[in-house]
């Protein structure tokens, strides 16, 4: 199969960037989307061009490193799926595919499709953790945790930090990301002592970093490859308000 691609090329943060059209041939339905880009990149290289830079690593949907805007949708057309898990059988060869980087003020473009998402690390660093030193913990069975709490914590902790929620949000808000971490820790006993300060600090940090505010558009949850729902945002707001009071 043969596809027409329109790919965002940008030499560096100061370059204006542009969409460049390519055709790529010899694509089979069982190839992954990133394997299709590999094929194109090998060809570009042999033609003496620079390959298209894009982030990827585990290629099994868990590291959170990949993330492309495909035809205007974060991680492309398939629900609950990261870019690396997409396969070409999902794409009609008659229609061109537009590929762009995540776009949000706190995510400057590094090169081509690669953006700098380190702002998400700053949010976690500011409060997304439990203050416990190695070697100080009591026996793991000292405090039983009701299964529903453990399951709720797990569902929120499934966040892979890819940033699709930010890219999808019309305001460039990181609320789904921040709330997922806050709710994961708030659902478990070790997360209680710092619960309020954690929520408040992380929200303040994301505001300071230039992420937008949440207006409950809900695009984040639609884009989330791990299907984290907007209920976590409501739970985060509860903890923030409780702390502000």
């Amino acid at each position, binding site marked *: 199969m043969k596809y027409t691609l329109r790919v965002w090329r940008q030499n560096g943060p100061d370059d204006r960037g542009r969409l460049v059209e390519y055709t790529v041939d010899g694509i089979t339905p069982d190839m992954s989307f990133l*394997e299709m880009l590999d094929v194109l990149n090998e060809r570009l290289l042999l033609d003496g061009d620079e390959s298209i830079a894009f982030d990827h690593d585990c290629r*099994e949907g868990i590291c959170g490193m990949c993330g492309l805007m495909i035809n205007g949708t974060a991680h492309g057309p398939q629900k609950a799926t990261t870019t690396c*898990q997409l396969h070409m059988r999902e794409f009609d060869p008659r229609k061109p595919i537009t590929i762009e980087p995540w776009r949000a003020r706190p995510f400057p473009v590094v090169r081509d499709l690669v953006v700098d998402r380190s702002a998400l690390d700053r949010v976690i660093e500011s409060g997304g953790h439990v203050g416990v030193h190695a070697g100080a913990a009591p026996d793991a069975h000292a405090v039983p945790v009701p299964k529903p709490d453990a399951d709720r*914590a797990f569902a929120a902790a499934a966040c*892979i930090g890819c940033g699709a929620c930010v890219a999808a949000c019309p305001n460039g808000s990181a609320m789904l990301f921040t709330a997922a971490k806050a709710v994961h820790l708030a659902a478990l006993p*070790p997360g209680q002592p710092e619960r309020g300060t954690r929520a408040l600090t992380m929200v303040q940090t994301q505001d300071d970093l230039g992420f937008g505010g949440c207006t409950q558009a809900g695009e984040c949850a639609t884009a989330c490859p791990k299907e984290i729902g907007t209920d976590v945002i409501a739970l985060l707001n509860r903890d923030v308000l409780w702390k502000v009071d």
Partner: protein
Amino acid sequence: MNYTEGTPLRDTRAPDGPLETRWERRRLAARLVSPANRRRMSVIVVGTGLAGASAAATLAELGYQVLSFCYQDSPRRAHSVAAQGGINAAKNYAGDGDSTARLFHDTIKGGDFRARESNVYRLTEVSGAIIDHCVAQGVPFAREYGGLLDTRSFGGAQVSRTFYARGQTGQQLLLGAYQALARQIHAGRVVSRPRTEMLDLVVSDGRARGVVVRDLVTGEITTHTADAVVLATGGYGNVFHLSTNAKGSNATAIWRAHKRGAWFANPCFTQIHPTCIPVGGDHQSKLTLMSESLRNDGRVWVPARPGDPRRPAEIPESERDYFLERRYPRFGNLVPRDIAARATKAVCDEGKGVGRGVYLDFADAIARLGRDVIAERYGNLFEMYQRITAEDPYSTPMRIYPAVHYTMGGLWVDYDLRSTIPGLFVVGEANFSDHGANRLGASALMQGLADGYFVLPAVIGDYLADGPFGAVSPEAVDEAEDSVHATVAALLAVNGDRTPESFHRELGRVMWDHCGMERSADGLAEALKRIPDLRADFWRRVKVTGSGSALNQTLEHAGRVADFLELAELMCLDALHRAESCGGHFRAESQTPDGEARRDDERFAYVAAWEHTGGTPVLHREELAFTAVRPSERSYR
């Protein structure tokens, strides 16, 4: 390629005497650094997987200044994140007779008696504290309705000691370690440098004192110095091109350290995981694992008649060969990985394979437990499988085939995790120490976190007590930096007609054919002839466009392939010299009449540590002594 014999090697830091108290006695004997002095000492940690992130966080908690590097854009993405099934610990929460001694026994036997007893015992001793610490960090392990932790079984064990968080255990443990690291970054005790790749080690006055790194965004090459260097850079499975490793996983850090004087132990000990999604087409870029935990409920089978064209549902029970249950009735589908992988290859070689694999069937488990229970246990794995293959494993059996997964070999370390270069410590998969010739499922996470949270922090002080070590020799820095600049320039200068990927693919085929699931003297000799030719071809024909002073992923890949092309040769040499079968290393010439591995304890009960000389490698043997477990034939029948 030839080798010469060097002086034997001894683990100089493991205390003698009873196994049960060695760790306690070593900790007591290890010198400490006072809190005030720790603030004046710095440690570089390369890699942020389970071992690296936990080590960096814990050393910072102790008060050392830590500098942490990773090539990913965030420490949270290191490949430990992809571990699915679980983490072992001898808690005996299931009340099924588990204990430290039993986990120790299973691990030594699982490793086919090629691991060091003292290290393995310590690993099993600290395993329980890992679970305690992770729970205290907020790791959301699976729980029962009563609120206690749930466990499941893994290969090579007859107890239920594997703790898990659905099929994302590695992710959840890594996030725990990453968050601990993030806390220390925020406190200013760790400086984190993501998107930075280590390209050389600085050795000054005989001590490891720093690293030369390349900023992957700007291309800038800089040197960072410290009082000690810790490598936590993972395994080298990507030498095979196709593996379950992340695309970026590479051997560069350990290989460059090897060339600076760190000996490389048992490079041929690689693990082929039995249950992966089979290779699809020629442009396949990686292989996806289906967790070993699936063998708790899935049954592995092939049609009894070779070439049977019927769909799986149409084949009656009597015409199926449940070959693991047939050959290994005691462990059944839960035999260790090397055994299951080899048995799978054997039935496929007999022509009984289906497509490019064998069936892993959940029909019985769904009938027994219901679809909901199976979905609760393995839902995310089933979805992952369906996305890749477009087949629904709830209604049709999975097809699976072995793939390269883990490397037991790595840089040689002593009981204190010191390499042969003073001041260079190696933790996690990057070292060789705990898994012998085959790693048991759910033990990699255990070892990474044991090294990082508990072992390294307890013994590094004994080394640093002699520091701070003063100024680093400027000549050593210049020499290392010049060598990195020269390599980058050389890769850009060739301007040939082949992509780095094409060389990687070709190397992978040579390694899979000759140094994969079955190895022979003839095949290895062939590989040892082809690899140097391929390497020469690489330096004549590789093409890298773009510049060294910007983000250049082609250049990064080319550098890693160049190192794989050197390491591959040492792996084949090691495999050729070890003329026995043990664990994942199966030599065609050394098997029992019914096709099982035949170990040769008379000749090969040692660790093979290789010294780099620039010419002929030198083999140093560390003889293995077994005091608590007597080496026996490793039977799972």
